[in-house]
């Protein structure tokens, strides 16, 4: 029972820390010149995502494999609860894959044009937050995107206007 309580306490604390960290990032407005993120070419990870549904207690959870290839784009291979592969090649315009590609290519001009940037770095861990500018296409659907990582991207948190929040966690990442 004690062990269980410790686990619950640890989960609550870490959730609180993450939430605080996420809110805190908007205290750090930044410009492209001050942002440093490791440049990735090809990365493989496991992902798990949780989507909240507005006005509902239900969650939508899924997980699978994530691949980022600098030249080809972003691939989400969902293995649970349905098997499906969603790929966004570099010439397609999906907002999230576009952001991932822009971050990986250090295309801060693109990010700066479309988003207000917020950045914070503690040791090797960094957090980049993007809030769509009113002129951006993303403004009508997205509130903010918070990307955090170290050597690799660890988490993406997407806050939308109508469709709740999505958190994508990346684990077991390896570059090749």
């Amino acid at each position, binding site marked *: 029972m004690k062990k269980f309580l410790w686990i619950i306490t640890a989960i609550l604390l870490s959730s609180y820390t993450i939430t605080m960290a996420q809110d805190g990032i908007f205290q750090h407005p930044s410009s492209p010149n001050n942002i440093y993120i490791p440049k990735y070419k090809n990365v493989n990870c496991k992902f798990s995502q949780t989507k909240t549904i507005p006005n*509902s207690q239900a969650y*939508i959870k899924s997980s699978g494999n994530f691949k980022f290839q600098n030249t080809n784009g972003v691939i989400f291979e969902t293995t649970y609860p349905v098997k*499906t592969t969603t790929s966004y090649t570099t010439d397609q315009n999906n907002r999230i894959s576009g952001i991932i590609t822009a971050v990986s290519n250090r295309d801060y001009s693109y990010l700066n044009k479309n988003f207000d940037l917020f950045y914070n770095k503690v040791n090797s861990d960094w957090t980049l937050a993007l809030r769509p500018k009113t002129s951006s296409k993303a403004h009508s659907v997205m509130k903010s995107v918070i990307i955090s990582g170290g050597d690799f991207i660890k988490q993406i948190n997407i806050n939308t206007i109508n469709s709740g929040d999505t958190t994508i966690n990346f684990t077991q990442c390896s570059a090749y």
Partner: protein
Amino acid sequence: MKKFLRILFILILIITGIFVLNNPTNTETNILKAVFSNNTADSTVVELSNRYSSKINVIIESSSAEIAEKKAQEFYNLIDKKTFGIEKFDSSKILETYKKYNKNLLSTYTRQKLIKKEYNEITSEAFTRLYNPVSFMLLPLNEDPYMLLEDYIQSLGKDNPDLINLNNKFYKIIMLEVNKSKALSPDLLNGEIKKLTKTQQELSDKNTTIYFTGTPIHSYYASSKAKTEINIICLLSLIFIIGLCYFYFRSLKLLAPIALSLAIGILSGYIAASIIFKSIHVLTFVFSTTLIGICIDYSLHYFIEKDLSKIIKSLTISMITTVSAFAVLLFSGVELLKQIAVFTMTGLFCVYLIVILYYPLINLNYNPRKINFVLPNKSKKFIATIIILTAVFGLFYHKFDDDIRNMYIPSRTLLKAENLFNELSGNNKKTTFAIVEGKNIEEILQKEENITEKLPTSNYQALSKFIPSKIKQKENFELRKELYKNTLKSYAPFLTENEINLLLTEKFSDKFIEVDNNLPLINDFLINKNTSVIVLYDIKNPDNIIKNGAKYIDIPKDISQRIKECRISCVKMIIPVFIILFIILSIIYKPKTALKIILPSILAATFSIGLLGILGQQINLFHILAIYLIIGFGLDYSVFRASCLEKVSDAVLLSCSTSVFSFFLLTFTSFKLINSLGFILTTGLIVSYLTSNLFNYENNRQEKKL
């Protein structure tokens, strides 16, 4: 009488000149407008071509994504916003409308599945959308649990990407829409595009390359090149004439009246074309530089003979036959050729008037050489054999080419840019159009839906794709409701019972998405309130489109078909033209002499076509039209030879050499249409000259007078 005519000529020239000065005509640089006119019966082709000819695509290429973005922003900051607007699709406006009426909307694919009641597939696809980590819900799940609005929007086609990564290079595309007022003034537009090219040079460096595509860019480069070519041809022609005067007349005094007659000839041609046509195509100016070569003939004949009475008959017949040959171009149905005809006919007639009205007033002392070139008899047989063999054998190898796309070959740089743009935008499909007419928008939308019903959605863009007809909107609502009835309870455990009940009991509100001019896209598809256009991609069989009452338009094919019809009618007219000319000449001369006069032209025409066949060159409309010009010029040489004047041999040689030189220069011009004419006219005139040497006209001295 002559005095009165002299004053009248000057007065007409001054009055019309002042009129044109006060009502200046635009210079047309659009390549397509060279080959079809706004007066054409198929005005929709013109309308569609205009619609798609005012866009410029700017492609910024860099090895760095950030540099590409920066340069694109710099480029945008530097362009004149009054001239170039950025083509921006305001998706937010239409998205709000779609959200409001989402239950009336279904993608074609989903609609077909729902009609067939394939609910398992629909739910399976809805799960895929639901669990997609990077998908967005445009509406809360309790309003659209199957995310059918996302499915509908995805079916409309992909949005323009912000940045494209291709072969390790990053590309940014800026689509510029030329302001309508500037698009109507090619001179102004070319000035603005010149500024764009300067910006292009300023921003290009080792890391960045900027490409341009689009009709205005092609027009700019073609017209800039044409202007340079006009200057070079004029300069070389003048140098040739100065050299000729100095060599033959051993005097440069003649240059003044010759230059003045040429200037007035070109000016009068310009005035006539300005009065008759709304705009003059830049290629008309290119071709009309050959007026120098033609107009100088009359001056040369006069200054060689020094007696107007000796040459007046030949000069008049020559003028009439040449003007008649150019007059045939008026019936070609090709705007450019009509302009060339008016420009050249007026110029020729005015130079003729100058020679007969003013030259006798000039008193100059000069001592011309005497060349008196005569072909040896042995050479005559050899030349005759070669000409006849080429004409006969060549006719077996001839092939026709009426494809408009082969008439203009862009530069390598422009071609590379066009290919790159097609690759980046995925726009390398063959585009055709369907024109739909209806009494009102609802009828148009229903007709469009019938036409596109069996087409894959990627094969067309139409207004009805973005705004379905009211009938379809209601059907979509009912189909969706059937889906809910059959699957919602098992599909959506994430919804509360109350939310599920609300969805199941919802009734159609009788409210529809209406065609509203404020919505984006509307003006892209509506030509007017009763006509819409469907843009089709890679359509192999347009039968279903035509069966449903639409007009199918394949612009290059339609223009090529018109060119083919025009070529066939021009070919059919050749023999009647020869017969008419023979009758006219038989009235003026004896039939035997008329035959001698007309034969060189027939030989020159058949030789030229035969030579094209032997060389493997495909014969186009413009080669056929050149035959008429060869007839006109060829007749001149024979008509003057038939006058049997003492120095006529020199006069014909000199006039032929000036004409041949001008046309020879045209073969080096970049526009295929013009260099086609240049090549065939050069060979045709040389053969006309040589064949006019084959006949002896000495026996015709006692023939009838004009």
